């Protein structure tokens, strides 16, 4: 059981001691104040990050009228049914509800307006979430991302190859600020991977294997029913979903920034990309990277992950991914790109790296490990983490410069095409 589930359960259970009030079903008229207060409450939820549109407010008023204002708990679940559309939102809603209707004591007054008696009730309180407090009382606090460490500046003096060749072959870690900017432009201009997978949905296809009776019949009726021109259908194709797991620990600092640019370019080009960052813990940044502007996207992603350039706990992060996310994002034949140097601290307590890699490998259609250390010709899998991970990957490639990134894109686009 995850901690979130436990917290949600106890929050739900906490409502049961709400005591009894007047008999429910007292369907009061939709007083203007009720609607106003629900609208204010919706605004609070919106500020706390829940996607609450004006339609939901109307629905909530309608629902509140339908349910009648009986008990506080019923009012709670009525608004819950309308405003919450994801499980993760439960906790935010729970705290916002208690804080909002508590501070204003609106629920009591509303219920008092509709019912003859209002009993007193003890309230066990929990410390509210910071984001709710901010949404209610202060406005949302600005959190700024730590910027990546400044790149080392080095002069490349080779004159025999063109500047373009130099840039393509240059290690990301060795690039100057200007070169990084150029690399970013190149990444944005990459012809991104378009790996098609066959779906079970059918579409018209003159060389398809199956007969399309419906289209055949319609075509034949169009000419009077004498001539039957057989129409055919074949499987449609769509892009395979991509899941990126990017190591942002200290040893990967020179690469993770550009990998994020790569992730952003991928997210821009196609919809089904999920991105996760991990150092000591796992953070999902898919939403942040969906912003169009790359700088804004990276800054938001950076602010979301709190463990930049720290230690690495690959096994723990993968375990978190396997438990919380694999079943949700690895459906439909997803390809997983794991970007990490595999330098795991010696295993102590906690999950085993080999076990988690095995689990990940078996849940993903294809697992590709991208390791910047592979650029060294004499790279040997000597580190303990690398040894544990290597047996469980389908492909193992370097990712230290633009040329290797282009090679990856090629590998993802055509050659590895499967049916």
């Amino acid at each position, binding site marked *: 059981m995850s901690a979130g589930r436990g917290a949600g359960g106890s929050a739900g259970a906490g409502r049961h001691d709400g005591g009894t009030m007047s008999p429910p079903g007292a369907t009061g008229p939709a007083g203007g104040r009720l609607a106003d207060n629900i609208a204010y409450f919706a605004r609070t939820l919106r500020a706390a990050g829940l996607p609450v549109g004006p339609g939901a407010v109307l629905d909530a008023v309608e629902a509140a009228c339908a349910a009648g204002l009986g008990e506080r708990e019923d009012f709670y679940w009525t608004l819950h049914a309308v405003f919450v559309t994801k499980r993760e939102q439960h906790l935010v809603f729970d705290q916002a509800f208690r804080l909002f209707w508590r501070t204003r004591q609106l629920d009591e007054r509303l219920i008092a307006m509709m019912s003859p008696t209002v009993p007193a009730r003890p309230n066990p309180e929990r410390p509210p979430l910071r984001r709710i407090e901010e949404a209610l009382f202060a406005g949302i606090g600005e959190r700024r991302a730590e910027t990546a460490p400044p790149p080392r500046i080095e002069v490349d003096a080779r004159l025999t190859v063109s500047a373009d060749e130099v840039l393509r072959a240059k290690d990301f870690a060795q690039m100057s600020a200007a070169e990084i900017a150029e690399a970013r432009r190149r990444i944005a201009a990459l012809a991104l991977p378009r790996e098609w997978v066959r779906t079970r949905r059918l579409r018209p296809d003159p060389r398809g294997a199956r007969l399309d009776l419906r289209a055949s*019949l319609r075509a034949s009726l169009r000419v009077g029913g004498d001539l039957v021109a057989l129409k055919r259908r074949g499987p449609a194709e769509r892009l395979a979903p991509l899941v990126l797991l990017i190591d942002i620990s200290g040893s990967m600092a020179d690469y993770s920034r550009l990998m994020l640019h790569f992730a952003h370019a991928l997210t821009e080009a196609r919809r089904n990309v999920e991105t996760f960052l991990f150092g000591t813990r796992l953070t999902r940044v898919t939403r942040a990277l969906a912003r169009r502007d790359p700088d804004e996207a990276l800054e938001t992603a950076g602010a979301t992950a709190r463990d930049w350039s720290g230690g690495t706990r690959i096994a723990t992060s993968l375990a978190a991914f396997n438990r919380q996310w694999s*079943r949700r994002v690895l459906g439909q034949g997803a390809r997983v790109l794991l970007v990490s140097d595999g330098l795991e601290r010696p295993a102590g307590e906690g999950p085993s790296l080999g076990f988690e890699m095995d689990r990940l490998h078996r849940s993903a259609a294809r697992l590709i490990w991208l390791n910047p250390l592979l650029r060294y010709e004499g790279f040997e899998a000597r580190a303990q983490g690398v040894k544990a991970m290597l047996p469980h990957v389908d492909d193992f490639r370097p990712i230290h410069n633009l040329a290797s990134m282009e090679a990856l894109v090629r590998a993802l686009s055509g050659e590895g095409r499967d049916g």
Partner: protein
Amino acid sequence: MAQAVPHSIETTQALLAGQGYVADRALATVVFLALRMGRPLFLEGEAGVGKTEIAKVLAAGLGRRLIRLQCYEGLDLASAVYEWNYAAQMIAIRAAEASGTVDRERLVEDVFAERYLIRRPLLEALEPDAAGAPVLLIDELDRTDAAFEAFLLEVLSDFQVTIPELGTVRAPHRPIVLVTSNRTREVHDALKRRCLYHWVDYPDAARELAILRARLPGVPAKLSREVVAFVQAIRREDLFKAPGVAETLDWASALVELDAAALDPAVVGDTLGVLLKYQDDIARTDAGKVAALVKEARHAARAAG
């Protein structure tokens, strides 16, 4: 006989309880609102927590017809909404040709008539029913693709379907729609916005015991308490897939079949496969852990009983 929809949260809860479904207040509230507001109900939760069962129970309790659409990848119009009976149409065309009266307009009209239409679940749910609007269960929506979701969005907002050859079919009364998802992928927000949302969680010990008693009255009281306490304890373990209520019920009946009057580590070890469905989870729950969990469950059961 069809019954009217319940008029309060209590009666909703009683209606579900009358069919052996033990719902908590939160679930009863959303079910009531869905019935009252005529909104689809979107139920999400782990496998085996009784999402599908709600639809069945609701249909039985209200005396309505249950129409089930099981989703899968590649689900298309022909298997979800309607299909023409091509073989019969072809024969009709041949017959018309044989009789020598081939009038193109007439032929099209004859061939695309209702008697050649094969109705699939979504269309069936929109047709009038003597027992009142049916319960439409759209099961495991996460298994299908975004294209079908978009189509469903249209159906669920207007409750009508257009068949080009026949015209528009509009539901006289909105069916009671329940959509379930195991969350193997995120369903689009636009669809969720049209529905009332509820996350169906694992039940707490008291409710799980009530469910067990309602569904399997033959299980001895002591064993039921221990089974529930054990399942509650094992859900707190670090498992890849925690057992759902369905597994609890299966396990309890398995233990009854084995004539177990109370839990003991040996029986639990032998029947662990009923409860845990992943080899990793079974391997992790070794004899020592089973013994510890059984001990904990006995203790909890004594405290509860």
